[in-house]
């Protein structure tokens, strides 16, 4: 299996552990990822708040590069960051659905000597793992069963809404299924796609922190040992603001928040160094290692 890889800006900074663990896990599964040449920022939500025409052009440059890069068959971009996945999918969808978007994008790209014909497929790692790789292949690689580990899968919003077709937009189950194939137990919690507030934690603190407090408290209330997520912004908000949340709302939360690919990597026996575990604020290894049949300390 070969795909183009679009890491996006976050996976180069706050989301580095995601980038590292995803590459390691995909390599273990025999999937070849080729980083998209000279990719640029997707534009996220903020760019479209200022100028939508430019936002489409910005995102489409990546699609055009991808289309030119692959000659055999339709090019597929794997976009792990939720915002990138959403923006690239939205650009692709609106390019297909709305004439004025297609015309605008075509003109913008032409100015840089690029063309786009609309052939790129944008997919999320969860989609690839469930539908192309399959759960049995994942289970086969597991060396350390995550028996007894209670995992809350947190999808956040933009991976499943509004354009993803690989899972239910409000009650997805793909990440849960992957976690179960690692031997872990998944908690059924209703907030798995409730928004973390995105950048609100930096702008309107009360709103942003409160959303994350709710997520953390509910995950704990349902008996989670840790939370796995597939979005760099969700991971950042849930993990890095725990101290502030504890202070502001008189909580005593210390819940490891890791990328689902990190837990997969640990289960596969990939050394933690390659998975960016040390980059996390809250070390998940004690809670994983403490479990019977969990990961031995030397990993």
């Amino acid at each position, binding site marked *: 299996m070969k795909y183009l890889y679009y890491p996006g800006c976050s996976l180069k900074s*706050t*989301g580095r*552990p995601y980038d590292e663990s995803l590459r390691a896990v995909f390599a273990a599964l025999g999937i070849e990822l080729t980083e998209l040449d000279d990719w640029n920022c997707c534009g996220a939500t903020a*760019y479209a708040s200022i100028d939508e025409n430019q936002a489409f052009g910005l995102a489409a440059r990546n699609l055009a590069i991808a289309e030119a890069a692959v000659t055999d068959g339709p090019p597929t971009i794997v976009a792990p960051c939720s915002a990138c996945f959403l923006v690239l999918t939205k650009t692709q969808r609106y390019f297909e659905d709305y004439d004025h978007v297609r015309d605008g994008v075509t003109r913008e*790209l032409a100015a840089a000597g690029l063309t786009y014909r609309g052939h790129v497929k944008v997919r999320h790692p969860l989609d690839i793992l469930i539908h192309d790789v399959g759960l049995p292949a994942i289970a086969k690689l597991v060396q350390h069963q995550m028996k007894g580990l209670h995992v809350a899968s947190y999808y956040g919003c933009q991976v499943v809404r509004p354009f993803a077709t690989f899972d239910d937009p409000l009650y997805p189950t793909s990440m849960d299924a992957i976690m179960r194939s690692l031997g872990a137990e998944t908690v059924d919690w209703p907030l798995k796609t409730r928004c973390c507030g995105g950048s609100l934690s930096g702008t309107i603190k009360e709103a942003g922190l409160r959303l994350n407090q709710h997520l953390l408290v509910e995950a704990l209330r349902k008996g989670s040992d840790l939370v796995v997520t597939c979005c760099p912004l969700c991971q950042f908000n849930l993990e890095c603001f725990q101290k502030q949340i504890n202070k502001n709302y008189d909580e005593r939360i210390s819940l490891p928040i890791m990328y689902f690919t990190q837990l997969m990597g640990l289960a596969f026996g990939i050394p933690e160094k390659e998975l960016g575990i040390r980059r996390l604020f809250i070390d998940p290894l004690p809670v994983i290692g403490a479990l019977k049949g969990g990961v031995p300390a030397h990993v």
Partner: protein
Amino acid sequence: MIGFLSTKHRNKNGSPSSGRIKKVVRRVKYESELDLGFGETIAERAYGQKLLSCIQCGTCSATCPLSYYMDFTPRRVIAMVREGFREEALNSFTIWLCASCYSCTVQCPRQIHITDVMYTLKREAIAREMFPRRYPIPILARGFFDIVHRNGRNSEGRLLLYLYLRTNILKIFQNTRLGLHLLRRGRMSVRQEKIHRKEDLRSILGAVSPTREEPRS
């Protein structure tokens, strides 16, 4: 004036101050004060006329994780847009709180692209400069826009610096520890990320006229 400025007359709990005698306010809206084409304009810019088919069921408000903080629930903003209450809609705190989680969009029984409506209103408000100075959300958006426009990639460290310089410089110090933690773990850098072919990007971004929400009054 209704809108987010009215929040200053509220106490901490968000309820009207009990100690104060409330002023009598005469409230009437004359049709001549409304922008009667506003609904159709926004509907068109937000991809489709479905906006006009809103049945005011409130699903958007109830599914919205941020509606608790809004001065008008998303449903009321849609009603205002439809009926031409342009000033109220654009002055509303609601449009800035939208975090683009798309819950409303996927659950709306009329399939209205509510998130796109919020984006459209934000752009309209920015074009009309209808937001207070030092208001962090549009400033963050502008900062992000400028960085990406110039370099092709975002740099989270620089962006935060930009935000705090333009809103409340004191916040930098509150967040210094968080920044240091991230730096130490290799999850943030002050270096500016760039793409190689910046000239391509400049051509693309300069090729079409900006999405301009022309002020019409």
